[in-house]
């Protein structure tokens, strides 16, 4: 038996998946969830083999929920209309069902999952998430997990980002949060007018800068409103001057 979880905010959308699932006796539905928070909890608890995941959901999107999971399970996305996401699906080998879908199409997705199960699906899911998180609607906020709590940080609340091994520290008013993405990813995803890579290991929110002081040798340091001091390399100084119009 394989464990399945359905995550969709519309009850009827879940019921159609349940109906179609009845024809696949090797799959056992362990839980259905109405939003990403419930979904995340259920995934942690049940460690399902496969999830059906809607994208537009309350508070956090399906993508944002997946980002919070260390080793996401195999995913079949179910969505009605999301131009950006569909483009991302087509270029990555994760299956997706466009609502409304019929049983044949559903069965095909299950067959595809069973065939791929033996291979490593994690990689393609990760690629997909990277691709999707560059979409304009996804780069307005950063969703992080803080212990068992989920925190949604609007990007304008971010002071600066700092590289920390495989993670990035997202510094805010309430301290920092860890996110398992790369600096390059954030440099690409965030609005370049607001966030500048001031240093190999730092991306700073220019709206938080109160002054830029010279530091030892050629380097500078950006002093933020909070008092934090963010290193600025020589090339980073050039970029900052350009964005600030100096």
């Amino acid at each position: 038996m394989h464990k399945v979880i359905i995550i969709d905010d519309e009850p009827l959308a879940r019921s159609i998946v349940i109906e179609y699932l009845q024809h696949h006796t090797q799959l056992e539905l362990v839980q259905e969830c109405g939003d990403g928070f419930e979904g995340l909890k259920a995934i942690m608890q049940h460690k399902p083999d496969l999830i059906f995941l809607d994208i537009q959901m309350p508070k956090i999107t399906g993508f944002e929920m997946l980002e919070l999971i260390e080793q996401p399970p195999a995913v079949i996305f179910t969505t009605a209309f999301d131009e950006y996401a569909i483009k991302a699906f087509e270029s990555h080998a994760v299956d997706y069902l466009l609502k409304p879908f019929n049983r044949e199409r559903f069965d095909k997705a299950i067959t595809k999952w069973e065939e791929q199960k033996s291979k490593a699906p994690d990689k393609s899911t990760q690629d997909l998430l990277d691709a999707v998180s560059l979409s304009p609607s996804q780069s307005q906020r950063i969703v992080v997990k803080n212990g068992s709590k989920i925190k949604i940080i609007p990007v304008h609340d971010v002071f600066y980002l700092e590289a920390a091994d495989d993670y990035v520290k997202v510094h805010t008013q309430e301290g920092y949060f860890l996110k398992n993405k790369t600096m390059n990813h954030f440099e690409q995803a965030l609005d370049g007018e607001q966030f500048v890579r001031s240093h190999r290991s730092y991306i700073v929110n220019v709206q938080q800068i109160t002054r830029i002081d010279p530091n030892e040798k050629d380097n500078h340091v950006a002093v933020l409103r909070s008092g934090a001091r963010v290193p600025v390399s020589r090339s980073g100084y050039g970029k900052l001057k350009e964005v600030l119009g100096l």
Partner: protein
Amino acid sequence: MATSPLREKKFLLAFIIFWVVMTIDHACVLYWFGMPLKAAMADSAISNILLLILSLLVINMLRFYMPRGEQHVNIFALCLILSLVWIFTLRWLLKISIGSFTVGYSTLLQQSIPIRFSIGFLLLGCITLVSILWFSQKEQKENETRKADAEKLAREAELFKLRQQLQPHFLFNSLNSINALIGTRPEEARKMVQQLSDFLRGTIKKEETQWVTLQEELQYLQLYLDIEKVRFGNRLSTEINVADEVLQMKLPALLLQPIVENAIKFGLYDTTGDTVIRIDASVENHHLMIRVQNPFDPDTASPHHKGTGFGLQSIQRRLYLHFARTDLLTTAANGTIFNTIVKIPQGKS
């Protein structure tokens, strides 16, 4: 092509009276100078008919050829040449006609040539000037009409487009719900198909500039709300509080539904609990005031919702196109409740 000023009744009448007066006056003057009455009348008739022909020629020519900028010199030259042609033809015509039977006519004719020429030239000049003014005014009017027409067309097209922005997301999700209902509750599926059809028909058939009563708009809104309630189940509920006296007030068609749609989306996607949408309408200073409330989470609301989100931008634009005002749509956050307030000036239909 501009119409000739002579097509205008008033203008034509003035034109005819002018020429009759001119002709009589001309004959009288000659009679005063001692010419026999018959000869004076013949002289006047020949002179003025010839001049009239040339005037008509000038008017008609300006209909097709309007001088621009420096070309006005050409018009002056033309008047001069036409006057010269007129005076020489006239002199010859009068000599062979009246000159042959009237004693002492030749002397009088010879002496009066400069005066005749001056008058003819001035008259042609005046007629040219008036024609140019007439035609340029006509042209300007036409341009203005065309511009106004083009603007109106563009405005209507834009309104049409803004109204047609039916969310594909809504449509596909509704179809998905129907698909689910078919298997388990076919009667409800049938009902929802009907509601969805009525709703879609409503978006198609209404004229973009049409005004409807609040009552009609609320009926249409109800279709939408019923569909959304099937989709979201118990999470979504609505409270509509509208006094009877405002039901007959008017607003542009299909204005309310997108505002409520925006509120529902905002409420449903920004919170995880139950979403209550409140709609109330009242009168304030001759404005129909509609307030739509939805819950939201001030800590995590996406920044674009803090201003007016996309759904509201198109409403803002539509209100501007209808009323040329930008202050009719306002939003305000009050704790965890988000208010969208729209004011519709009354007294226009």
